[in-house]
């Protein structure tokens, strides 16, 4: 059993599940119907990705874990998602920007993960990349529309950048299981993705007439299970049914 590979796979699964759970809060609550459909379709793709990673984690663990037990029965400290995925939706601007930052990162990460020595991780990455391409296109169009929109929408985007920027650094600050899996050829060295990510974001911000924040203190901890106070609330919602009625099925 390769604990490092299990941790890494769970990290990828948790990232997708937690941002999906946040987006799912908007189901039937988005500003307009078409965008409600868009954000929930993205949610569906992300849940699908998380299922693939959880199923594979369960195979690797080989201890009776299932995709369901991994999603529904682990507590806060066991979750390895980046902090940005658990930040509240805020207004539409903040939701969009969080998705844009995350999808642009996922795009670069999975481009590399396609070449993983681990066949299953490579297959999941290749498959997911097709969907992520849509997520990047859709969310970047919204960043541009709102940033270069009205005074109100522009101010909201500036506030959203202020709220989220401090969480973006964590993408590129590796923890032990990332460094180890990257060395073994299973994972990706995230430090190599930072420059390209920043260039992509800069180009979109420029089109959106938004200033690119040059310096920041970056929050970290999520990848090793040290979360914001938000994750407990997310899990209490996400896990309620299985905790209250263990083993409940449709």
């Amino acid at each position, binding site marked *: 059993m390769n604990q490092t590979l299990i941790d890494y796979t769970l990290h990828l699964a948790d990232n997708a599940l937690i941002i999906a759970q946040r987006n799912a809060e908007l189901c039937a609550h988005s500003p307009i119907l*078409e*965008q409600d459909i*868009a954000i929930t*379709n993205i949610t569906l*793709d992300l*849940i699908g990705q998380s*299922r693939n990673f959880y199923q594979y984690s369960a195979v690797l663990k080989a201890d009776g874990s299932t995709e369901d037990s991994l999603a529904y029965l682990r507590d806060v400290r066991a979750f390895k998602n980046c902090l940005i995925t658990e930040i509240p939706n805020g207004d539409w601007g903040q939701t969009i920007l969080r998705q844009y930052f995350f999808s642009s990162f996922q795009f670069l990460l999975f481009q590399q993960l396609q070449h993983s020595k681990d066949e299953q991780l490579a*297959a999941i990455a290749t498959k997911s990349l097709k969907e992520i391409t*849509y997520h990047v296109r859709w969310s970047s169009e919204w960043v541009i529309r709102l940033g270069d929109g009205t005074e109100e929408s522009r101010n909201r985007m500036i506030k959203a950048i202020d709220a989220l920027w401090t969480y973006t650094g964590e993408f590129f600050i590796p923890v032990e299981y990332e460094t180890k899996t990257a060395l073994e050829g299973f994972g990706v060295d995230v430090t190599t993705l930072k420059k390209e990510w920043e260039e992509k974001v800069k180009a979109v911000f420029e089109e959106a007439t938004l200033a690119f924040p040059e310096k920041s203190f970056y929050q970290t901890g999520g990848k090793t299970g040290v979360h914001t106070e938000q994750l407990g609330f997310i899990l209490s919602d996400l896990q309620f049914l299985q905790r209250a009625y263990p083993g409940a099925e449709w």
Partner: protein
Amino acid sequence: MVRSSTISTDAIWEILEQVTDPEVPVLTITDLGIVRDVKINDDEVEVVITPTYTGCPAMDMIAMNIRLALIENGYSKIKITSVLSPAWTTDWMSEDGKRKLLEYGIAPPHLLSTDPSTIEIQCPQCMSSNTKCISEFGSTACKALYQCNDCKEPFDYFKCH
């Protein structure tokens, strides 16, 4: 009960050609290119499928419908295997499938190799190419929402994937 010695993969493919997609019932799963392989392991029938979109909720139902169709035809030992690689693409959709989609009112996907600048999404109602995208995401993960500028009808476009 079908005996192992009499199982032929052709017969299995014929049954699978009758199984339809629950979200787009005009298409069969073989039209969509979801079935990747059929294997006979002694007296067991193994159907290898691949998901269209990772989170497509129709996949669980499709697996169940395959099982039911095989049971109805007398096969009892059935294994359904899901593979992710190579990743599904709309290029695997049959020409017959594309024609059926159009007749059903959904604009079919272009080939991935098509130059994006030359792509025209035709309105399935009046065949006009003067159409616009309303939303990148439509009623299911595989579709985008379009509208015809001539006849004004909104329609689904099966995204090139």
